[in-house]
C-alpha cells in the first residue's frame, strides 16, 4: 500500500470537498481557511505532483481564462484509487487511535 503524507492527505480531502472546482488557487484558499495558516503554492504543488504520479489524482485541462493571462485552469479530480487510499488511511488511523484513554484526550484538549 502506498502511504499518504499529512500534506497529501489534507490536499486529497480538500479536493474531494471542493468537488468540481478544485484547482491550484481554490485548493490553496480552502486549505488556508481550514487550517488557519497561510500555505504557499510551493507547499501544495509538491504534494500534488506526488499524488499525480502515484495515480491518486487526475489533472484535467480547462478553458483559457483572461484573468489568468490567457492560461488554462487545470482541475484536479480524485481517482478511485485515491479514494481507496483515503479509506485505508482512515482505517489505520482509527486502529492507532483505538485504546487511547479518553481522559488524556479530554484533559489536554481543555488546556
Amino acid at each position, binding site marked *: 500500500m502506498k502511504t499518504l503524507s499529512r500534506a497529501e492527505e489534507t490536499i486529497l480531502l480538500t479536493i474531494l470537498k471542493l468537488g468540481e472546482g478544485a484547482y491550484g488557487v481554490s485548493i490553496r484558499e480552502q486549505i488556508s481557511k481550514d487550517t488557519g495558516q497561510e500555505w504557499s503554492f*510551493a507547499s501544495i504543488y509538491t504534494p500534488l505532483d506526488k499524488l499525480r504520479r502515484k495515480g491518486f489524482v487526475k489533472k484535467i485541462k480547462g478553458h483559457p481564462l483572461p484573468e489568468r493571462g490567457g492560461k488554462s485552469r*487545470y482541475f484536479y479530480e480524485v481517482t478511485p484509487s485515491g479514494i481507496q487510499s483515503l479509506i485505508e488511511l482512515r482505517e489505520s488511523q482509527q486502529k492507532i487511535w483505538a485504546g487511547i484513554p479518553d481522559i488524556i484526550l479530554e484533559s489536554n484538549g481543555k488546556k
Partner: protein
Amino acid sequence: MTKARLKPPWIADLILKALLAEEEYFEKSGDLEEVYRCLAEKSGIFRAKIWYWAQTLKAMPSFLINSIYWRHIMFKNYMQIAWRNLKRHKAYSFINITGLAIGLACCVMIMLWIQHELSYDRYHQHADHIYRIARDITEGTLQGHKAITTSPPLAPALRDGFPEIVEVTRIGRRGDRLFSYEQNHFLERDFFFADDSIFKIFTFSFSKGDKTTALNTPNSLVISESIAEKYFGNEDPLGKTIILDEKTDFVVTGVIKDMPSASHFVADIIMPFETIAKIDGINLSNWGWNGFYTYILLRPDASPDALESKFKTMLQEYQRQGFYFLRRERLFLQPLKSIHLHSHSMGELSSNIHVSTLILFGTIAFLILLIACINYMNLVTARSSFRLREIGTRKVVGAHRGQIAKQFLGESIFTALFSLAISIILVELFLPVFNRFADRQLALDGVSFIQILPVILILVLFVGLIAGSYPAFYLSSFNPINVLKGTTGIRLKRSRLRNTLVVFQFSISIILIFATLQVKDQLHFIRNKEMGYDRNHIVILTMIDSEARKRQSALKKELKRNPEILNISSSQFLPNDVGSSTWINWPTKPEGLVIPIHAGEVDYDFIDLYGIEIVQGRNFSREFSSDRNGAFLINESAMKALGPEFHLGMDFGHWGSPESSGKVVGVMKDFHFLSLHEEIKPLYLFLNPDVNWRLSIKIRGGNIRETLQFIGQTMKKFSPHYPFEYRFFDDVFNRAYQTEQKIESIISIFALIAIFIACLGVFGLAAFTAEQKTKEIGIRKVLGASVSEIVYLLTRDLVRWVVLANVIAWPVAFYAMLRWLQNFAYRTNISAATFILSAFLALCIAVLTVSFQTFKAAAANPVDSLRYE
C-alpha cells in the same frame, strides 16, 4: 488600473518558464497570476509583486530539483544513444571526427599564432604610452615615404623641447662584430646600443646589476642571461671584461632576463650609445644621419596628436640652422603596440607581419573547419533513415519537436567536443612543424591554452550548432505516423542542400589548389627570371675584421693564386639588394627636378664578376687614375629619368651633393638590384674599394670543397680570430623570397587538408549512396547493365558537382591571385593551364576517392543483393 500593469513581474515569470515543462508552466503561472491579479486589485500592485516573487522563490527549490532530475535522465539517454551511434557506425564516425578534429586543430594552431602576433610588445609596463618616432618624407615624385630610422640629435631635442615627453632613448643596432672574453671569440650577429633611459621606457627585468645605473658609465655592457651563459658559463658575469673587435674593453654591469620573443626587437647585448658612437665615428649632431631608432615615453595625460603637430616648428628651427633637407620631413608617432602589425618600412628591427596575412590564414583555417562541418551535416542528414524509428518512437511517447532538435544539437556538440580532444593531440604533434614554417616558438602550454580556451569553446559550440542545426531542423520535422509506418511512408528526397554544400566544399578546395599552383608558378618565374647579373658559383664572405679589410688588395692577390678562383670583387652591397638611397644632384640641376636614386659602393671588378652589361660609355678602370675618386656608373633607369639632361661625362654629385664629385663614365644595362616586388629604379655605382665589407669570389665550378678550404685558410691568415663563414650568392638570392616560399608551402598544406576533408565527406556520401542503391544496381545488372555503366551512374552526379564547383571557384581564385600577384612588379600571367590543372586535379581526386566504393558496388554479384527480396 490598466491591464498592462496587471502583468506579473516578467523576470519571475521567465524563471518559471525556464524551470518548468510547458504544461506545468501554464498551470502554475496561471494559478499565480490569478491570485496576483486579485491581490493587486485589493492591496496594490507593489504588495502583489512582492507576493508573486515570494511564491516563485519559495517554489524554486522543488521546481529546480524536479527539472534537474528529469533533464539528467534525458541527458543520460541522449548521451547513451549518441555514443552507441558513434560506435555502431564506425566508418562514418571516423569520417566526422577526423574531419572535425583536423579542422579544429588548424583553427587552434592558427589561433595560437594570431594570439602570439597580437601579443607583441604588450608586456611592457608603459606599453600604452611608448611611441617610436618615424619620418614621413615627401619630395618630388616621392610622396609620403615612411622611414622609421631617425638621427642622433633628435632625442636630445625632444627631451629638451617637450615637457610632456617623460623619457627619450636612442637605440642603434649593429651586427657582425667580434666579441671576445679571454680566449673565446664570438661573432655576434647583432648587438644594440642605447641611452640608459631605455630601461626606464621599456620593461626589462634585471637578474643582476642595477637598472638605474647599468648603462650610465662609458664602456659598460648589459647582456642577457643566455649571452652570459655563452660567455661565462657558471661564473658571475658582473665586472667581467668583454673586448669588442679586439680593441675596446667593456665591463658587464648588468644581466637581464632574455626578452620575450613577442618583442619587435630582442636585444641580447646592450651598450651605451655614446661609447659606440665614438668607436664607430657617429656624428651625434648630424640631422641627416638617419640610422637609429628613437623611442619616447609620453606622459599618460598628454595627447600624441598634439605632440605630433608641435614637431613641425621644431624641425623648422633646425632647418634654419643649416639642415635644409629637414624641410621634406614630417615626424610622426608610432604607438609601440602597433609596430609589429602595422609598420612595414625598410630597416625594421624584426620582420613584422601584415594584418592581412593573419586574416588570410585565419580565414583559411575557418573554411577548413567549415568543410568539416559540412561533412557532418551531410552524413547525418543522408543517413537519417537509420534514425527514423528512434525519432518516431520518441515523438510517439511525447517528445516534441524542440526536444528532438535539442537532442541532435547535443549530439553534434558532443561529437565536436570529442573531436576537440583529438585536435589538441594533433596540435601537440604538429606545432613544431608549424613553428618551422611560421618562424615562431609557439607552444600549447597552460597559460596560452587558458587564454584561447574561451575562443575554442565558442568555436566548438559554433561547430556543434552549425553542423547540428540542419540535421536537428531536418530530422525533427518528420511526421511520426509516416516514420513508424515504415521507411516507405517517407520519401527521402535527394537533398538539394546536400549537393549545394558539396559544391561549396569543392569550391573552397579548388580555390586553394588554384592558389598553390599560382604561387608555385610565380616562384618558378622568380627563380628563372633573367636578373641582369650572374648568380652561379659566387661565394660571399663578410669581412668583419677591419684590419683585414684594410689589407684587401693583399688578400685578393693571395686568393687569386689559386687557379680555381676566377675573379674577386669587394662591395658594400650585393647586386640583389642595394639598400642606400639618395637624390640625384649636380651643379646645373634645374630647380624642381627630383630624382631619388639608389647608390652602391663597389670596386673595379664588380661589373665583370657579376657579368653586368655596359650599354654606353665604359666600366670603371684602373687605367684612369681619376676614376678612383670621381667616376660614376648609372643604370638605364637613371638615364631615362634624367632624360635630356643626361650626357656621357656629365657632372655628378655624390650622395646628393650639389657640387660635382666626378663624371658619369658609363651606363649599365638595368638589372634587378631590388627584389622582384619592386620595379627597377635609378641606381649609380661608385668606387670605394678599400672599405667594402662584402667579398664576392667567383669560382670555377670544378672542385668546390677544396676551393672553399683554400679560401678559409687564406682568410685565417689575414684575420686569425674571426670565424670563417661563407654563403653562396644563390642562397642569399633565394632567401629574399623566403616569405613567398613559406606561403607556398603553407597554402599547399592547407589545400591538401581541405581537399582531404572534402574527400572524406564525399567518400562517406558515396558509400551511403552505394548502400542505398544496392538493389537498384542488382536489378540493373540482372537486366544487363555493365560494370562501367553502373560506375557511370554512380559517379555522374559527383562529376557534375565538381564541375559546378570549378565554375564557382574560378572567378574567386582568379581575382584573389590577381591581387596577390600585384605585390610583384614582375609577375607571371595567370595561364589557362592553371585553370585546367586545378579543375583536373580536383576532378581526379574526387573520382578516385569514390572509385573504390563505386567499383565495389558495381562489381557486386546481383544475387547477393537481391536474394533477400
